[in-house]
Structure formats: C-alpha cells, structure tokens
C-alpha cells in the first residue's frame, strides 16, 4: 500500500487540535502557556549545556552533553508544534519532529546506559576534594622535605656535589653545595652544567675525573682519601661517590660527598708521632749506651796511638790498625744515627712495597744489645719470607719494637715475681696459600690475663703501673697494621720449655692495598 509523498503530506482532511478542545479559551490558554514555558525552558537548557561544555573544555564526555542538547531541543520543538497544531493541523510535521525527537532520545538514552559504568567511575566532587586535600598535604610534605634536604645540602659542612654523567660518558657538574664552594673557592652558578674539565683547574680535573670514571664504570659506591690543593691550602678529603642509575642500570649521576679530614689526619699523625716519641724515649737510654760504646773505643785507641807517637814507639802497622778501628767505629755510630734520625722523622714516607723481614731484622738489631745487657735473648727464626707487603717500613718497625718492648716489660715483671724468663722469639714467614706474610713475636713473660686479652688493642688500655705505659702502643700498632690491610692478634701460648707467654701474630697481605680498601677496613 504505497502512499505518495504528496499524499502523505496532505493534511486537508484533518481538523486543528483546538477543535478537540472545543476552542475553549481557558483550556487553549492553559495548553499554550504550558507548552510555551516548557519549550522555552527546553531551548534554554541546551544553550546552558553548550555554554558549559565550551567553557569547561576539560569536561569528560562533552559529546554526551551535546547529544543531550540535541535531544532537548527536539523535545522543545515538539511542544511548540503542539501549540501550532492547535490551530493548524500539521500533524505529519509534528509526527516527523517527534520521530526525530524519538531517535535523539533513543540515542541519548542508549549512550547514557552505555556510558554509565564510566560515568560512575568518574570521581565525585567530594572524592575529588578529598584527593585534592591529600595532594595538597603531599605537596606540603614534599616542600618541607625539599626545604629540609636543601637546607641539609646548603648548610652541611661536608662538601657535597652532584655530577651528571653525560650521554657521551663525560662528566658535568649539576650542583655543588655552599660548603664545597667555600672550600674550593668555586662559584656554584658558574659551575652548573659545565663539563668538569672546563669547570675546574686542569690539575684538579686530572685528579677527580679518574675517580668519577671508576664510579661510573663500576657502578658501585667508592670512597677514598685525596689530597687537594685548595685556596685555603692543601686539604685532605675523605670522599665518597655514590652512583645513581637509570632503569637500564646505566650510571646517569654521581652523588659525591667530601669530608675534610685534614685536622683528623693531623691528630692521628700526632698520636702516632707521640707514641713514636714514647717508644723513642724508652730507646733513648739504650741509645745513649750504644753511642757511648764506639765513642769510647775511638777515644781509647786514639789516645793510645797518640801516647805511643809521643814516646816515638808507634810503628806504622799499629797506627794503621788503630785508624781502621776508628773508621769502623764511626761507621757503627753513623748507622745508629741514621736509625734514630729515620725513626724520629715525622713523615714516615709514602706507602711502598717492602720486605717485612728487613724491618724485623732492623728492630732486632736496634734492641738486641740493650736487651742482652738485661739478660734477655732475642731468638730469630728466619723462615722463607720473600713476599713483599705494602706500607711504611718504619711504621712496621715501630710496631715490632713496641712488641719487643712489651715483651721485655713482661719478662722483667715475671722475673720480679721470682720466675725465670728472658727469651723473645721472633719469626717471619710467607704464607703462600693466602699470599700473606706472618710475623710472630713470642715472649716467655708469663702471658696475659685472658679476661683482659680482648681489650689489649684498645687505646689507653694498659696493664702496666701508672707512669709506665701510655696504653697507646698496641692500639697505634693495631692502626698501623690495619692500615696495611693486615691484622694483629694476641694469644697466650705454652712454650716447649714449659714456661708460658704471649704470642703476637701479625698477618700482612702481600698484594698492594688500595686506598679504598684501607678506608673500609677502618670503618
């Protein structure tokens, strides 16, 4: 039953809707007024919605609001058409508008249901407010932390710096703290983002770049001591570099801190020096004796020769013999003087490789005669000791001398209590399995009370009577051995002769020790 469009649009047979209302003016007015109000309201809503969407560009699902707008305009239009059809029976037009409205409503309703889960997921204003509050709190906390850390960074006396590792592997300063700026005479602003090589003096760059490189390549925290020339003079820093890595594990930043340990080093050296002087003091008496001996021989032989010369009884062979003796004695004195001179020297020289057996020999030589006078025999067991160790030979000699001196004191005390004692045994040997050298000093002085054995390396701990010992000898010795990467232990031993005594065992690693290892072992 096909109907032509013209026929479909033909409204000739309809009566206006007002007829149904019998043209009663009150009913008509009611309908017209209501429809006008509804229509106008409907038309105003999309304007408001559109305005809202335009002004609030960030609103979620804005197109939904526009769909609503279309749907409401369509609704509003149906109401105006209702007024129109009161007088004009354009019901087809009205129907078509309703059809449009129906589609718009359907689409809007469908879209609304479809969107519902996502709309529900949108945070409510209250939730938003709560999360905003939390965020504000977080921001405040972070600001406070940042302020705290930046005050840390800015006020800490320790020199702090951040080095950026550039994509090409080179280094640039990201920031330095005021302490570093002050110590180093640097300007933080000028340094920022500049390559290390361009930012600091070439000598300084040559010193620090290898360290940064080591940290970058190993990806591990490193620490070391370095002596740097600063405007305030030469300073010693204990520096620590901490690598910061990206997700791929590449080091992108290095955090550095440098503690000025110049003063501490000086005090340490002073304590070592004090103990050295104390050891020297105990040796001075023996030394006076040692020096007076050759001097005496020289005097006696020259006087002899002179007397014979005066009496015309000097034959050349006798004169030659006397002069040779004198020369030998001056050699002997020269050696003693050298020894005392190097021993008293403040700076023990740099770390170097050496054979510990030489130090032991030298220490034995220094006290053997003096101890022999007190009936104390030093027995050497020279094993195979060929491995070199790294450190300062004079310091090791000082440690061994200190052990001898303690052994001597123990022996003297033992004798005072009526027991026999008088042997100090010293042995040096390699431990090829562990690549280390072992030095043992054993006495027969009765041993140490086991209850105090753990304390003997503590500073100022002494078993000697007031005024006899500073209590620093062993603790300094411990520090020296530790500084060489080795260890020193003490235990009581039963000797073959049946007597008891103490055995100190020094174990020194034979490979060179790096500065960082040394620092770690101190920690």
């Amino acid at each position, binding site marked *: 039953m096909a109907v032509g469009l013209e026929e479909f649009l033909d409204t000739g047979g309809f009566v206006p809707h007002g007829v149904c209302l019998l043209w009663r003016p009150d009913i008509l007015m009611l309908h017209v007024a209501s429809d006008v109000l509804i229509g106008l309201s409907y038309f105003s809503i999309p304007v408001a919605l559109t305005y809202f969407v335009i002004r609030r560009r960030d609103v979620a699902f804005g197109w939904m609001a526009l769909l609503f707008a279309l749907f409401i305009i369509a609704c509003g239009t149906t109401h105006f058409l209702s007024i129109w059809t009161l007088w004009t029976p354009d019901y087809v037009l009205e129907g078509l508008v309703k059809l449009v409205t129906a589609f718009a409503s359907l689409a809007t309703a469908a879209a609304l249901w479809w969107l519902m889960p996502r709309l529900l997921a949108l945070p409510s204003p209250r939730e938003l407010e709560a999360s905003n509050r939390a965020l504000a709190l977080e921001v405040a906390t972070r600001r406070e932390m940042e302020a705290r850390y930046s005050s840390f960074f800015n006020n800490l006396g320790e020199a702090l710096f951040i080095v950026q590792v550039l994509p090409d592997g080179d280094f640039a300063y990201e920031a330095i703290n005021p302490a570093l700026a002050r110590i180093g005479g640097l300007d933080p602003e000028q340094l920022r983002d500049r390559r290390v090589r361009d930012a600091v003096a070439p000598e300084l760059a040559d010193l620090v770049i290898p360290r940064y490189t080591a940290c970058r390549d190993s990806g591990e925290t490193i620490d070391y001591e370095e002596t740097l020339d600063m405007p305030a003079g030469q300073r010693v820093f204990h520096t620590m570099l901490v690598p910061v890595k990206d997700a791929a594990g590449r080091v992108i930043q290095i955090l550095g801190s440098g503690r000025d340990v110049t003063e501490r080093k000086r005090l340490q050296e002073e304590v070592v020096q004090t103990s050295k002087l104390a050891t020297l003091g105990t040796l001075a*008496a023996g030394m*006076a*004796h*040692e*020096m*007076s*001996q050759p*001097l*005496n*021989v*020289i*005097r*006696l*032989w020259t*006087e*002899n020769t002179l*007397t*014979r010369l005066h009496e015309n009884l000097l034959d050349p062979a006798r004169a030659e013999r006397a002069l040779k*003796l004198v020369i030998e*004695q001056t050699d002997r004195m020269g050696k003693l003087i050298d020894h005392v001179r190097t021993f008293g020297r403040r700076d023990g020289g740099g770390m170097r490789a050496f054979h510990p057996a030489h130090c032991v020999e030298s220490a034995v030589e220094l006290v053997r005669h003096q101890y*022999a*006078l007190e*009936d104390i025999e030093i027995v050497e067991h020279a094993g195979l000791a060929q491995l070199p160790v790294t450190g300062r030979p004079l310091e090791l000699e000082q440690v061994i001398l200190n052990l001898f001196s303690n052994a001597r004191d123990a022996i003297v005390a033992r004798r005072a209590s009526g027991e026999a004692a008088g042997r100090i045994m010293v042995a040096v040997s390699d431990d090829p399995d562990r690549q280390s050298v072992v030095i043992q000093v054993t006495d027969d002085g009765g041993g140490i009370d086991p209850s105090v054995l753990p304390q003997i390396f503590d500073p100022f701990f002494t078993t000697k009577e007031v005024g006899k010992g500073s209590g620093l000898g062993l603790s300094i010795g411990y520090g020296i051995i530790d500084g060489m990467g080795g260890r020193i232990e003490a235990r009581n031993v039963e000797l073959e002769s049946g007597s008891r005594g103490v055995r100190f065992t020094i174990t020194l690693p034979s490979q060179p020790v790096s500065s960082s290892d040394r620092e770690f072992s101190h920690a």
Partner: protein
Amino acid sequence: MPDPFHILIAEDEVLAAMALEDFLSFKGFRVTVAANGVEALERYASERVHALVTDLRMPRMDGQTLIREIRERDAALPVVVMTGYLTQDSDLTHERWKPLEIFSKPVNPRTICNTLNRMLGLPQEV
C-alpha cells in the same frame, strides 16, 4: 823493680777493653780483662787485684752488682767506673762506695791512668 799493680778491667766491649788494657800495660800496670761481672768476680777470687775498672751495663752481671759483691769482700779496693750513662737513681755517688770514681764514656785513658795512680798512691804523671 817491685811487682806491678794488678788492674782488673770488667768491660763487655772487647775493643774498648783491648785499648785500655794496651794503654795501662804501656803505663806499667799488669792488666786482666773480664767480659762481664761474673767473670770479673771469678778473676778477683783467683788472683790478687789492686784496683777494679768496670763498666756498669754488662751481660750476666752488671757493674753495680759487681761493685756490691767486691765491697763485701774488700771495702778499700779502688774502683773506677766507666759508664755510658748514669741513671738518676744510681746510688754509686754515695760515700759508702768509696774509694770509687765515676767517668762517663768516652773516657780519657790518661785520666783513668792518673786516677788509678792517685788511688793507689803512685806518683802522678804530667
């Protein structure tokens, strides 16, 4: 010519002992050398000794002990001490050890010789 005076030297430094022995022999003394206190005491016990010249620091028996032992046997034996250093607490300067003279090393052998001469009542050399 009367028998020469017999001097006992206790000194552990062989070269010094030899030189002093040589010098004193040259000056007419009979000299015996001992390397330590024990040996010196043995020599003293076995022969007549007119004077002792001793070091203080020696192995086995030191000079101080040696002098004490000698004084128990002979209160009047002239003693000459040669020492590298004299400890402050040494009481050798006390009257009761006399006749005793102390010299610091290096010693002048002429002084030692003159002192021995004086203590033994012999004429002084110039």
